[in-house]
């Protein structure tokens, strides 16, 4: 079941004109911003399929930029996102790409700040709902609709157990969990969707566990 709540159908409250190309695009941008944690110096936006062909008419570009500026889908500043990006000293480039197999509405976002680089691929699946399918080269499935913890770690024995033990200690219930890695023994990514919002102290405690490289969170 891709859609879980009635508010995926009746909602979101949003700036027009398109739930998939405007609201969904803004949400993909916002997830990227949340995971990156700050305004980037530079953002490269790659649009595929219908996104590439119709982004100007749908305001897909301003919506993603608005998301990168941490705006919600109903924030009227989305309309003037290019101006606000300039004020925030964020340099934006749009790249029109060809078709892509899995879904027509796909965006890849590359963010840069100092020597930090970040890459995320998101798909807008309709009605404003999105899926994040790739993060820094890791394949994943993340809806962005639930609070989630993302843990980048070394692929070692006991790391997953240590993380879930700590969550149990803080009485965090795991709704959905996924682990992916690029190669055996190398870096791996844990995506943990939870029921309640995640506080900073838990993120800090998780990042102090052995073999953990980076922890970030997404709120509902």
């Amino acid at each position: 079941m891709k859609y879980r709540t009635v508010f995926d159908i009746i909602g979101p409250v949003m700036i027009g004109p398109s739930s998939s190309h405007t609201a969904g695009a803004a949400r993909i941008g916002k997830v990227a911003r949340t995971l990156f944690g700050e305004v980037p110096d530079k953002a490269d936006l790659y649009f595929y399929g219908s996104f590439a062909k119709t982004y100007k008419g749908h305001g897909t570009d301003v919506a993603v930029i608005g998301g990168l500026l941490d705006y919600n889908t109903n924030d009227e500043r989305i309309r003037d996102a290019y101006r606000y990006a300039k004020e925030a000293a964020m340099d934006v480039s749009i790249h029109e790409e060809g078709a892509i197999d899995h879904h027509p509405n796909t965006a890849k976002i590359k963010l840069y700040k100092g020597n930090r680089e970040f890459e995320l691929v998101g798909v807008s699946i309709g009605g404003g709902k999105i899926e994040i399918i790739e993060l820094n080269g890791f394949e994943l499935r993340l809806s962005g609709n639930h609070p989630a913890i993302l843990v980048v770690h070394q692929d070692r024995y006991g790391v997953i157990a240590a993380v879930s033990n700590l969550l149990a200690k803080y009485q965090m219930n795991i709704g959905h969990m996924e682990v992916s890695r690029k190669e055996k023994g190398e870096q791996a990514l844990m995506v943990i969707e939870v029921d309640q919002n995640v506080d900073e102290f838990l993120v800090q405690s998780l990042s102090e566990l052995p073999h953990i490289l980076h922890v970030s969170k997404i709120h509902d």
Partner: protein
Amino acid sequence: MFRNVSELLELTEKHNKPISEIMIEQEIDVTGRSREEIIAKMQLNLKTMEEAVKRGIEEDVVSVSGLTGGDGKKLAHYLKYGNPIGGDTTLLAVANAMATNEVNAAMGIICATPTAGSAGVVPGVLFGVEHKLKPTEEQKLAFLFTSGAFGFVVANNASISGAAGGCQAEVGSATGMAAAALVELAGGSPKQSAHAMAIALKNMLGLVCDPVAGLVEVPCVKRNAAGASLAITAADMALAGIESRIPCDEVIEAMYRIGQTLPESLRETGEGGLAATPTGRKLEAAIFGQKAEKIN
């Protein structure tokens, strides 16, 4: 959790509750939120819809491209001062639906139902029948939960994305949702709601998504008008006891398969259908100038 319309109907029978109540209870169960929180969230959606309709009917709304705006207002004026042939309720629903989509095209604030391109149908019908059925606020919220229940089934078993399934997935779904919800509001049974949904969606099958210049304007605004009108007709048919020969779930399945076989040019790419007509191309060139060549 109901996965299709027949499971939804079973739940209404088992618990002797309307569809809207089954939807609210499932929402409480799935999200862990309280009934009050869920109702409050839907109230915000209802208020957004009300304001969008009002704005589109009263103000001179014009989209950024200049292609759409003012038609909802025009029809509302004609309804008030002209000599309309169609029924008042239907025409008011149509005016409201267009008004909402015109606000959407002007990058105004709307509530997607189930998408922004199809955001006019559900509120259009709800506020169109208001003077006739005089719903309480609770009933208006129930209307939205019932609409949501049917949209939920379509989204999970077929698609609500024009890029994936054409306009039948967007305005088609919205029309079925509104028809089903209207049956409940008018006192019909859950089964009649399902028939209304099936009858409405059957008449939207095959509808392509071919927006001029790729904008959610032409023909989207007028397709929302048609959706609002059809939703009321389908609801009346179901309330009269007319049944769909093809069960609702199978109509939804057919919509999904039709969507999969639509060529890409007719799935929200702005490359086929009305978008590819000489006038469609001319409008596109006028709006985007030289850049249009590059996009397409």
